[in-house]
């Protein structure tokens, strides 16, 4: 076998092995998307209920709450970045980090200093590599977010928000995450979490609730203020939990897409190299034939 032919065969073999791996990863994330999507759907009643309740309290009482009032001067802002723990997901992590960087630029141009809360190993790696400081990080579990982590993040964020700015607290909090739109599209989303501006859901209200557009006059127990006090942190928790679930569904979708195109590329490589290998084999044969014919010719003419 010619040297060239052997090299092509090796390349084909390695592309085939890679393809097997990427195909397997594609199938795994395809099945995980469904699970992640189901979890997003399952958490919907909770977030809808809380959003409705918060809107109800907010629209029927003029209670000023510390979480909803805009501070006079905003000096320090915090960004919560939701990335994944693992890569191989195409632009998933880089697009969210890029959005965060853009937001940082914007905030800095407004004279605010920025602090970070990081979720996911990828963002922590990004910050460590650049020797940049961050306030806190949560690693692990982004594939399968649980509510406890969301609660922990919410607690940390709220604690920072309620602390005085002079004491290392922050005056506003933004979150950056990937929203799962479809299996093909995941959009990075940047929203301001605190102070709360609109307490209305950004999701379409379920069809059954449209007939109660106007909230009835609620009786609050013990009173509107306490209810709001109890509800708002829960609302923040549910927003963060939702961001985590969205991000995990988006991550699986991004992985599936990336692995699909990797498998397709491997297919293309295999076809290309097979052509080249055939070509090399054929030219080897042709050369051998012409050598034999030439040799025979030389022998017969020598007689």
């Amino acid at each position, binding site marked *: 076998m010619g040297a060239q032919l052997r090299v092509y065969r090796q390349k084909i073999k390695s592309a085939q092995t890679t393809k097997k791996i990427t195909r397997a990863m594609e199938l795994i994330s395809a099945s995980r998307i469904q699970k992640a999507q189901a*979890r997003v759907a399952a958490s919907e009643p*909770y977030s809808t209920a809380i959003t409705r*309740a918060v809107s109800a309290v907010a629209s029927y009482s003029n209670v000023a709450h510390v979480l909803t009032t805009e501070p006079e001067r905003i000096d320090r802002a915090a960004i919560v970045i939701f990335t994944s723990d693992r890569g191989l997901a195409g632009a998933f992590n880089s697009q969210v980090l890029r959005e965060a960087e853009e937001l940082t630029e914007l905030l800095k141009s407004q004279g605010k200093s920025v602090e970070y809360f990081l979720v996911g190993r990828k963002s922590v790696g990004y910050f460590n590599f650049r020797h940049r400081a961050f306030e806190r990080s949560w690693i692990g579990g982004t594939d399968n977010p649980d509510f406890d982590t969301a609660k922990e993040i919410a607690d940390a964020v709220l604690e920072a928000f309620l602390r005085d700015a002079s004491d290392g607290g922050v005056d506003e909090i933004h979150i950056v995450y990937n929203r799962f739109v479809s299996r093909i599209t995941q959009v990075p989303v940047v929203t301001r979490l605190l102070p709360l501006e609109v307490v209305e859901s950004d999701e379409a209200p379920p069809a059954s609730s449209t007939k109660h557009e106007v909230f*009835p006059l609620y*009786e*609050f127990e013990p009173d509107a203020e*306490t209810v709001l006090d109890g509800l708002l942190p*829960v609302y923040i928790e549910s927003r963060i939990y939702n961001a985590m679930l969205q991000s995990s569904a988006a991550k699986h979708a991004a992985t599936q897409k990336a692995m699909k195109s990797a498998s397709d590329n491997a297919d293309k490589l295999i076809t290309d190299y097979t052509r080249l290998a055939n070509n090399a084999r054929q030219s080897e044969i042709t050369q051998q034939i012409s050598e034999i014919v030439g040799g025979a010719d030389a022998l017969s003419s020598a007689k």
Partner: protein
Amino acid sequence: MASLNVSVVSADQQVWSGEATMVVARTVEGEIGILPGHEPMLAILAGGEVRVTLPGGEKITANAEDGFLSVQANAVQVVASRAELV
């Protein structure tokens, strides 16, 4: 007789939903019983049991922690970060 439309919701799923004739829950101010036709209400729950009486007279008990209760037009929602049927 009108009945209540009850749903018990936790952070990651809907725990239970269905018709009921009465709901008893513990709020921060004490136990409260809700019958059909109750006025709209929002209350903070103290951790503890929520007892739901079904139209057939059977009872369902759920543990709800850290949440609230909303009543509106015979729809009762028990919303808690952690809730489970017992």
